[in-house]
């Protein structure tokens, strides 16, 4: 029966190997799970799950797989029977509640509970029917139904309750995170080369030279290895980007840390790139994109951060900039194409969750720039792409959409 649980875990992209599964079997044979579901929950997680980012998926798998396990239901039935048998706990109830208590007998309640446990697919708070917290359903924690049945919670937390809490959700890898984590992800963005003053002892060369010198010690120095990656960061600010301002500033903080890259420059734009970009977020010091391109090495890595959301006309019409005074002729998408074409490696990070991408201008821009969501996963993938190249992510079918939008 447990082998199915292994596949349940693997189906949720948990990298559990045979190696770990054998270790788990060994542990079960030693009785380390203390013959309980709770013990098994912790044991299996300890052995098979090696990353806090996977804990949430593990909880999901555990819930899905063990929802039908009769043992758990039996244990709960016992708890319930004891609860009903213990008159002290009924003292706090009003007459009315006590009468209501007669409405459901134990057997019936247990049947209902098991039935709902099977039907229920997700966590539930409030409401009158499902098992969860709050609410007036007869099942769950912290509820108000006098004849209700508490599932988990309180003293002696059961594994099902712990799994159901989904405490590890915030550690998932596919959500957006803090400066430190961005920092770590950006560490991958490097290409080391020797440059600068000779201040590191070159041991191999020293030994070689010393031997050639018949044992007279000859010390050889060399320059230390430094990161040679140059980064050009373009950030969309204002308007629809306001909700993401905090996140973008974290990315900027991490990226601009001194000594990280051989060269780091950042510019701002609003909505879409037109003929100018700006040195400051108040759009006072403009720099023509043509000048920027002329002064940029093709090897620089271009990273654009923006939600890529705008009115189709702002992107596709020549002169579609929302700034009336700008006299440019090329459309926004044309400017973006010029940028993308100039640099060997470019990436677009989008703080908008990727489930909202289809059917918007994001699709069109993603056909010009390889685009990733601004999550830890997306950031790592884009860093990999910038350093090693590889396949671009595919986003929808922009051609179809553009046709529909422009008629």
């Amino acid at each position, binding site marked *: 029966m447990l082998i199915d649980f292994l596949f349940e875990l693997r189906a949720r992209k948990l*990298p559990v*190997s045979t*190696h*770990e599964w054998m*270790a788990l079997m*060994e*542990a079960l044979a*030693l*009785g*380390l799970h203390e013959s309980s579901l709770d*013990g098994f929950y*912790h*044991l299996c*997680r*300890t*052995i098979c*799950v*090696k*990353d*806090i980012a996977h*804990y949430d998926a593990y909880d999901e798998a555990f819930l899905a797989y063990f929802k039908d396990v009769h043992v758990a239901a039996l244990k709960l039935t016992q708890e319930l029977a004891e609860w009903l048998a213990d008159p002290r706990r009924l003292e706090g109830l009003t007459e009315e509640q006590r009468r209501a208590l007669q409405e459901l007998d134990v057997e019936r309640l247990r049947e209902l509970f098991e039935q709902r446990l099977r039907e229920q697919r997700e966590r539930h708070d409030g409401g009158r029917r499902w098992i969860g917290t709050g609410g007036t359903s007869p099942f769950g924690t912290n509820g108000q139904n006098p004849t209700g049945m508490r599932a988990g919670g309180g003293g002696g937390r059961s594994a099902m309750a712990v799994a159901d809490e989904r*405490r590890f959700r915030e550690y998932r890898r596919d959500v957006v995170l*803090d*400066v430190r984590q961005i920092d*770590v992800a950006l*560490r991958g963005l490097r290409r080391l080369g020797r440059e600068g003053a000779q201040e590191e002892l070159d041991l191999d060369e020293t030994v070689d030279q010393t031997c050639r010198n018949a*044992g007279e010690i000859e010390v050889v120095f060399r320059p230390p290895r430094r990161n040679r990656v140059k980064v050009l960061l373009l950030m969309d600010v204002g308007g629809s980007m306001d909700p993401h301002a*905090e996140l973008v500033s974290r990315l900027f903080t991490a990226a601009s840390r001194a000594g990280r890259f051989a060269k780091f420059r950042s510019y701002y734009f609003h909505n879409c790139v037109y003929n100018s970009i700006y040195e400051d977020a108040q759009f006072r010091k403009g720099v023509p994109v043509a000048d920027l391109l002329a002064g940029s090495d093709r090897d620089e890595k271009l990273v654009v951060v923006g939600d890529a959301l705008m009115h189709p006309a702002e992107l596709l019409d020549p002169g579609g900039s929302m700034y009336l005074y700008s006299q440019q002729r090329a459309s926004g998408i044309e400017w973006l194409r010029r940028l993308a074409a100039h640099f060997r490696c470019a990436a677009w990070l989008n703080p908008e969750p990727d489930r909202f991408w289809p059917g918007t201008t994001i699709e069109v821009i993603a056909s010009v720039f390889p685009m990733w969501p601004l999550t830890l996963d997306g950031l790592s993938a884009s860093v990999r792409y910038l350093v090693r190249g590889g396949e671009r992510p595919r986003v929808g079918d922009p051609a179809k959409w553009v046709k529909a939008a422009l008629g």
Partner: protein
Amino acid sequence: MSDAAFDQFQGTSSYIASEELRHAVNVAVALARPLLVRGEPGTGKTLLAENLARALDLPLIRWHVKSTTKARDGLYVYDTVARLHDSRFGGDHDVRDIAQYIKLGPLGEALAAPSRVVLLIDEIDKADIEFPNDLLLELDAMRFRIDETGREVAARERPIVIITSNNEKELPDAFLRRCVFHYIQFPSRELMAEIVRVHHPDLSDRVLDNALEVFFGLRSTPRLRKKPSTSELIDWICALKKAGVDLARVSGGIPFLGTLLKTEQDLEAVGKRAKA
């Protein structure tokens, strides 16, 4: 296997371990696999190894990993420069005997030890990305060979290996497969009260309550760059005690805030909220 043999680690008088952590440690000991511990800084990852050694009454060998540490350094170092020096200027050592210039590293020592030891590999993620991979064979087989002398070092009893990591780098899968993993959750209020009690047994309930109130209030401040951790709470209470400050009577700001918050932005943010 009886329960007594399995439940070897129960925490110590100065180290309160959550039930989950105790279980993870005991699983690692029973399966003879390294235990990889992660968690917020200041949740007592390193202290775990010290206290495990104390609880089981075994010697502890520490290996603090730095960004320049090489896996081989953990096994042994062949001090070629000393040998060269001796050969040129004559020392007390016999230059022909290479074994005299071989110094065992922490992992080497743990494997060569006559009895069982606890080995702490601290902050493994500080080193190069390939570092954990270079240790795979040694951690699996618990033996290695000193190439220069041909000596085989094999552990008589597998050491208990505790590895800590701060999540700075992704660890390689092959390495993770061989470990047992535990993430130290930040302690709940009840557990935290217990932990503080252990360090400051003479604290009155009221003072402890006040301190925890302030501490957890501070932790729930939104957008803190570095949330204060257990070790900082303990230091802070120590500072309060030394200065004889009574929290209940203090008005207008938290005393010794610098022991709890370590960045300027955080101090500013908390200051602003206090005024608002």
